[in-house]
Structure formats: C-alpha cells, structure tokens
C-alpha cells in the first residue's frame, strides 16, 4: 500500500489546508464536540462547590446522578433519533404509558414482576416501531409523527390508569432505585444502568458500521441509500430501539418514585431534547457525540440541585437552562461555519 502523503508534482490536486504542527493538536482538541458541554459542566460544578459546602459531597453527587437517570436514559434514545435528523416528541408520554403498563400488570394484573417489566418495555418499543414506520414508510416528518403518538400515548395512559396512581409495587420493580455502597457513599443501581447504556450507545455509534450509517443518514440519506444500506429498515430499527430505551426509562422512573404515575412524563420530552442540544448534538442531524447528551443532562441536574442548595429560587434554574440552550446552539453554529 502506498503511503499516506506525497502527491507527484505534475498531477497533484491542491493539497488540503495544511494543518500546522503547533495548531493541529490544539485544533484537534477544540474540535472535540463534547468539549463545550464538558467545560460548562465542570464550571458549574466548580461554582456550586464554592457556593455551597454541601455540593461536592459524595452523597450529593450520587443524588444528582440518580435524579438525572430518567431523563438521561431518554436522552440516549433521543440522541440517536436526532442524529438521524429526526426528533421524538413522544418519549415522555410513551415512558409514562410504559410505566403504567408495567405497574398495573404487576399489581392488578397479577403478572410476575419480570414479565410486567418486559411488557412495559415491549409496549414502548412498539410505539417506537410505529414512529419509525410512519416516518420511513409513510414519509411523514418526525416532528408531526411523534406529536401524534405523544397524544395517543398520553390518552392511553389516562385511559388505562383511570387517572389513578398505582401503588403497592412489588420490590422487583423498585430494585433499580436501591443503592449500593461505593467508598463512603451510596450509588443507585439505576444511575449505573444509565451510564452503561450511554457507554454501549457510544460504542455502537463510534466503533460499528451501524453507528457510522446512523450518522451518515442524518447527514445525507441519499448517500447511505446509494451505498447499499437499507435506510428504511435502519431507521425503523433506530426508532424501535429508542422506544425500548424509553421503556427502560419508565422502569427507572418507577424505581425512583415508587409509584406508577399517570401524570408523569409531561415535560420529559423537552428535557431530553434540552440535554441533547446542550450536549452539542446538532438538531439537523449527523453531528455530535452521544456523550455530550450525558454531559447536557448532568448539567441541568447540577444546576437544579446547586440552585436548591444555595437557596436560589427555582425559577432561575429555568432561566439559566434557557440561556444555556441558546448558547449551545450558537456555539454549534459557530463551529460549523468555522469548519467550512
């Protein structure tokens, strides 16, 4: 195989702008898409650790992780969908429906807890498959499709739950809300599961062909189709897997709150999109790292927890989040333009 460089003199096409040795390492570092969100997260942690002596404790950090685990898990699925240049507005409602299905089946339906959990996750995956099919086969815009399924899921949640919160859950359902000791603190099993899901998603997106095709389909779906990939099957798979992830988020929600709550999930769709955007993933698809969404979700959790600890009115949390979202999108646009 010939070496990487050295074009022959006569026929050389002009070389790409040479990356000078000094700037290349810095340039490569700056181009790490998650540098922004990670930086913001570390800055926020730094600020709150000075503002409150209770912030930087093991227990509090573990608490933040636990509070973020539901939206974080939703954000894994949302990231994958947004990377394909789609969007999912239905994930909160689907999660709520899943949580009602699994709790009702376990309590009133008398099903063994594992089966109830599987049914709940399965129902959410089914919603995902419906979303994916409508987007690819009927060619409807994802925004519209998921807006529709959001309402359907919300209605089904109210109908099946009869507006009643489900209580008296078997302990298997809340197991993920239990904690185990790590050093001097306790960590929730569920938050570890969320981190594992992020790690697996990161691996698939970075190191497998399927992940690469996912990025490509958000960037230029024709290119992927012409490259011989079955784009329709790919997208339906992505939406379905995202749905299953929403089912896992439902289980985490049940574990955290200890109930099946039909009123849940009303703001989580936007919360997951916020985490994705704060994480530097482009809403136009094809760009960004899923780890960014984890940082984005953590950032929101840190700010909420930190403001509470310092006694600041929670309204400011919403204000700050809004400013950060705009800043994140602005930085993304700026970086895009610099790339060209």
């Amino acid at each position, binding site marked *: 195989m010939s070496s990487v460089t050295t074009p022959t003199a006569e026929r050389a096409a002009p070389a790409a702008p040479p990356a000078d040795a000094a700037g290349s390492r810095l340039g490569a*570092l700056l181009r790490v898409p998650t540098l922004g969100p990670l930086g913001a997260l570390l800055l926020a942690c730094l600020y709150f650790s000075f503002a409150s002596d209770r912030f930087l404790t093991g227990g509090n950090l573990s608490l933040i992780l636990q509070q973020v685990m539901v939206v974080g898990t939703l954000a894994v699925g949302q990231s994958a969908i947004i990377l394909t240049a789609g969007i999912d507005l239905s994930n909160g409602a689907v999660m709520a429906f899943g949580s009602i299905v699994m709790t009702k089946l376990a309590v009133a339906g008398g099903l063994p807890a594992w089966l109830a959990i599987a049914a709940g996750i399965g129902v959410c995956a089914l919603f995902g498959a419906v979303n994916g099919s409508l987007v690819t086969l009927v060619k409807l815009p994802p925004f519209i499709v998921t807006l529709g399924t959001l309402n359907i899921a919300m209605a089904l949640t109210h109908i099946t739950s009869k507006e009643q919160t489900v209580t008296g859950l078997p302990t298997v359902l809340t197991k993920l809300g239990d904690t185990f000791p790590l050093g001097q603190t306790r960590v929730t099993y569920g938050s570890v599961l969320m981190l594992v899901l992020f790690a697996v998603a990161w691996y698939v997106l970075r190191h497998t062909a399927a992940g690469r095709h996912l990025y490509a389909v958000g960037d230029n779906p024709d290119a992927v189709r012409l490259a011989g990939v079955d784009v329709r099957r790919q997208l339906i798979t992505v939406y379905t897997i995202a749905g299953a992830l929403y089912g896992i988020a439902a289980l985490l929600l049940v574990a955290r*709150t200890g109930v099946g709550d039909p009123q849940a999930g009303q703001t989580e769709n936007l919360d997951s999109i916020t985490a994705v955007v704060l994480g530097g993933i482009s809403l136009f698809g094809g760009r960004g790292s899923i780890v960014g969404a984890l940082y984005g979700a953590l950032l929101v959790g840190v700010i909420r927890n930190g403001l509470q600890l310092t006694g600041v009115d*929670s309204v400011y949390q919403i204000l700050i989040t809004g400013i950060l979202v705009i800043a994140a999108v602005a930085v993304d646009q700026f970086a895009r333009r610099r790339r060209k």
Partner: protein
Amino acid sequence: MSSRFTSKAITALAVTAGLTVGLTACGSGGSSSAGSGSGSGGSGSITVGLITKTETNPYFVTMKKGAQAEAAKDGVKLLTAAGAYDGDNSGQVTAVQNMIAAGVKGILITPSDPKAIAPTLDRARQQGVVVIALDTPPDPQNSADALFATNNTTAGKLIGQFAKAKTAGKPVKIAMLDLAPGVDVGVQRHDGFLAGFGIAEGDPSIVCAADTGGDQAKGQTAMENCLQKAPDISLVYSINEPAAMGAYQALKAAGKDKSVTIVTIDGSCTGVSALAQGEFVADSMQYPLKMASLGVDAVMTFAKTGKKPSGYTDTGVNLIAPTPIAGIDSKDTAFGQSNCWGS
C-alpha cells in the same frame, strides 16, 4: 493513535476520575444518609423547606410569601421549590431529595399527587426530617407527620348551606365545577357542598359536572360546555376562585351573569373584590398564610425541642357574603377585604 483519540481518552479519563473521586473521597461531609440534625439549641441556623404544587398559582405564591415572612421573623432559613405543573410528582420528589441534601430540618409540602408522593415522604421521615402537609393530605395521610389544612368539607358545606338558603323555594339546576378525579381536596369540597345544600350525589337537580383542574381557562371552557348541555343552569358550585372567574366569563358572554348564582371557595383578595362586584354571591375563605406560618413554627419547634407536630390542625374557614341571608352565619365584605390573602 490519533490526537483526536487521545484527547477524547483524556477527557473520558478525567471525567471518570472526577466522578470516582467525588463519590468516594468526599463521602464524609453531610451525606444524605442518616442526616439526623446537629441543630440542638441554636448552634447552627435552622433550614426549612417549602414545596408547593406550582410556582404560578397565586394560592401557592401567597403560601410561599407567608412562609418567607414567618421564616424571617423566626430567624430560620427557607428553601422553596415547586413542581412544573399541577400533578408533577417527579418534580416534587426531586425537590424533597435536594432539600434533604441541603440539610433541612423539616419539609412543608402541598402534594401535587397525594398517592404518588407518599413513599418519598416516608423515606424523608426515615431520614429524620419532619414532614408537614399543607392544604392537601398525602395518601395515606400518615406519610406526613402532620397536616395543616382547611377543613375542606366545612368549606363546601358553608357555601352549600348559603346556596340552599339563597335559592330557597325555587327549583334549581346546578353545575358542579370540580378539580380532578380522585383528589381529596376536590372530593371533600364537592361532597361538603352537597351535604350543605341537602342533596345527594346523582340528584336530578345536578345537570352538569366538569373538571377544571382549578384553572381559570379550563373553568371557562367547562362552564361553556355545561351551558351548551343545559342552558337553564341557575346555580354554579366552583372548586376555587380561578375556576369561578372563568365560569363568570362564560356566563357573561352568554348574557347570563345576572341570572346565574356562583358560589366558590378560596378567599383571595382578587376573589373578594370579584365577590364585592357581584360576580359571586358567597366565598368560603381559607387561610394559606396561617398554614404556612404554622408550618414554619412547627418545624422550628421540632428543631429546638425535638417535639414533632402531629394530627390534623384546622386552619379555619369563614364564609364571606356581601349580602347576608338571615339564619346563615357569614362575614361581610369588609372582613373579607382585611383578611384576604394575596395582594
């Protein structure tokens, strides 16, 4: 290896290291396990948490102001939080956890979902925090140490009795504007009204019942739909003032504001002026400020002496009616204006 890979690896390592260090080495200071207070006597400042249903409903805004005033008077620190919407259990769970992490001695809460919040309140009490429910009890009620609330059944009964006396002799068609299915506050007021009026559930004089969520816009919609269903409604029971004001708008638009009677519950200053202007005929006044200040005081007592409040404390209710009716005990508008809550 590419420089991009190494920079990514470095950030990943840094984050993992940071998390591990944070979780393990810093476990000493004030972790959330077994946070039994060190606040004997007046050694540290006492912190109290107040969690309302939402930040926007004026009722809860008043409660928050009352708590802040009492906290300033008592010299305690007040942390506040709320859910994102009426019914947001998850947001209240997060607030409870964060406040415990912040080291509160007691939590005052108006539960958005009484059933759903119960396990979280139990866990909070297990960690040595005193939990006081304001305005709405959790379900089961003993998930909180104490309840400071209006006797909602009485509140409903008072306006039911007044309405009965007002419409005595004439046949009535009643519209019931309720809260939401299964919520105690709404059920108690609804049943109290029926008992005061002297009819049972399902009575033929009740021609329409709708849920409003205690919201003005939804109250208006509910009233409009009820009027479509039964144009000759003559009496409206409303769960609270926002819903009543929405109902009044609907009636006014239909030209029926003079011919239909509205009775409601709350006692805000806005509501009392609407009452004075004749939009409603009777209003059961609640005392959220009293709930808040009693709550703050109770937590302070617990922090200082270890004595927990318990049981249900009735924070009182008064019937306000601009035009009184013989035989029914009520207070006049002047009383209403000087005792109302809100601005």
